[in-house]
């Protein structure tokens, strides 16, 4: 068994009053594991991912990543910890007016001091690496194109390159294929899968598509109303379990699942 890289213990978070966004979340993720998080919209999937790298500060609970307690870090230490966590977004979150190469190089900014960061001073080695990453993701013709000229799938691949150049140990993907067509979705998911198995990077993916989660994951976590209601291998995800995760929405969900369900 590979060592545990990320461990969430009893993590809770609430926005204002009202029902908590997350309550009592316990997750342990091993090195190189590919975990999908599924659940209805508003179940707290995005909040969960953002609590891990403290883009959203979690109210209670402990998050241990790479032998470090995330909650106790100072601002400087937090920045250092974040360099080891790549993040991929539904809307790619690139700087549209800059080229693909520049956007990839942004992944190195966490390692820089104020001066080098502000002026964007990158080493020759970093530029070579960025170029290679773009080529390995099939973007060799778009290296110097401005990002607003790229298609959705291409933008997401730039986003992956930006995360990989950080040399992360963990990749957080917040609905990476929710805005993409099926073809591009497959390309992106294949890349993410190979990142986890080939590079040994732990990948946490929020997904809306149960069939995709079943196909790619080592483990699936089902979230509903801020609580984990399923945590296990894809083969254990039965109809009942899906019902349990999605509640009343499950009826429509079965259509999506098609013949591929895991019962």
């Amino acid at each position, binding site marked *: 068994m590979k060592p545990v890289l990320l461990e969430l213990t009893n993590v809770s978070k609430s926005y204002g009053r009202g029902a908590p966004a997350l309550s009592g979340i316990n997750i342990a993720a091993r090195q190189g594991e590919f975990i999908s998080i599924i659940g209805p919209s508003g179940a707290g999937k995005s909040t969960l991912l953002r609590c891990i790298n403290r*883009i959203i500060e979690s109210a209670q609970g402990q998050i241990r990543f790479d032998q470090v307690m995330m909650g106790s870090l100072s601002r400087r230490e937090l920045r250092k910890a*974040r360099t080891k966590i790549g*993040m991929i977004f539904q809307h790619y979150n690139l*700087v549209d007016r800059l080229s693909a190469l520049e956007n990839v190089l942004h992944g190195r900014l966490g390692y820089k001091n104020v001066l080098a960061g502000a002026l964007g001073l990158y080493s020759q080695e970093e530029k070579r690496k960025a170029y290679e990453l773009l080529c390995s993701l099939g973007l060799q013709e778009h290296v110097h194109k401005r990002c607003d000229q790229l298609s959705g799938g291409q933008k997401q691949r730039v986003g992956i390159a930006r995360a990989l150049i950080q040399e992360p140990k963990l990749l957080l993907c917040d609905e990476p294929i929710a805005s993409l067509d099926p073809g591009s979705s497959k390309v992106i998911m294949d890349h993410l899968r190979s990142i986890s198995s080939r590079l040994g990077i732990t990948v946490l993916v929020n997904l809306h598509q149960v069939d995709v989660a079943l196909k790619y994951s080592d483990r699936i976590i089902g979230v509903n109303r801020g609580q984990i209601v399923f945590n296990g291998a894809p083969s254990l995800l039965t109809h009942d379990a899906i019902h349990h995760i999605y509640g009343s929405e499950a009826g429509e969900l079965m259509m999506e699942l098609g013949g591929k369900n895991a019962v």
Partner: protein
Amino acid sequence: MRYDFLTRKRLMTLGSLLAIMLITWGAALLTRFDAGQGLSAIPAALSWGIENFYPDEKAWRRLPGIMDKLLDTVLLAVASTTVAAMAALVCAVGGSRTMRLNRWFGLISRGMASIFRNIDIAAWAIILLFSFGQSALTGYFALLFASFGFLTRAFMEAIDEMSSSAVEALRATGAGYITIVCRCVIPSCAPQLVSWMLFMMETNIRSATLIGILTGTGIGFAFDVYYKGMNYHAASLVVIVIAAAILLIEAGSNVIRSMILRG
């Protein structure tokens, strides 16, 4: 019922119209303004203008001196605008919703922006006359304060309009505040920032001319001296030079603007 409503609306319109006419008539009566006399003076004014208000040969000989004064005024406007833009950028970034440093900085920079903006340039010049007397510094600071207020507000809005998604992505890579501002915020809204600055520069060249009459500097003062010395030929040359300069600068900034939007 419906008929009543329409009638009432029509009566309201008629009432307001009558009120406006009454106010106009009253104001004219109080100031002893005769519209007929004003209109009938136009032909005479025109013929006077044609007879006297053109540069003769003696006036043309003053051109080098006038150009010197024009240069003074233009440089004054450029210097005050650029310095104001730099200060405004700092306040706008720290006070914007996306990149807010803290609540107090936001409130203070918004408050300062509206105070500096709402006091007119002419009012600033009169206030500053007490401290700096009739010198170029008075004009410089008057333009600086007013442009600072306006640009802070405009920059703040440009930054808040920009999508904050890329900022989130850079934060997730571990990049620091200043790095994020330089590598993401400024590149994303550079066209708007430059466009506002150019607009301010054009406005300031016009304002600097008028301020010059108050402070006794630049081309505004040259006009004042010639006009009050009844040297109408030279005064008309000043007007022509100012108009030409403004048109030239407007054309120049349009070129720069389109270059930035494309690039």
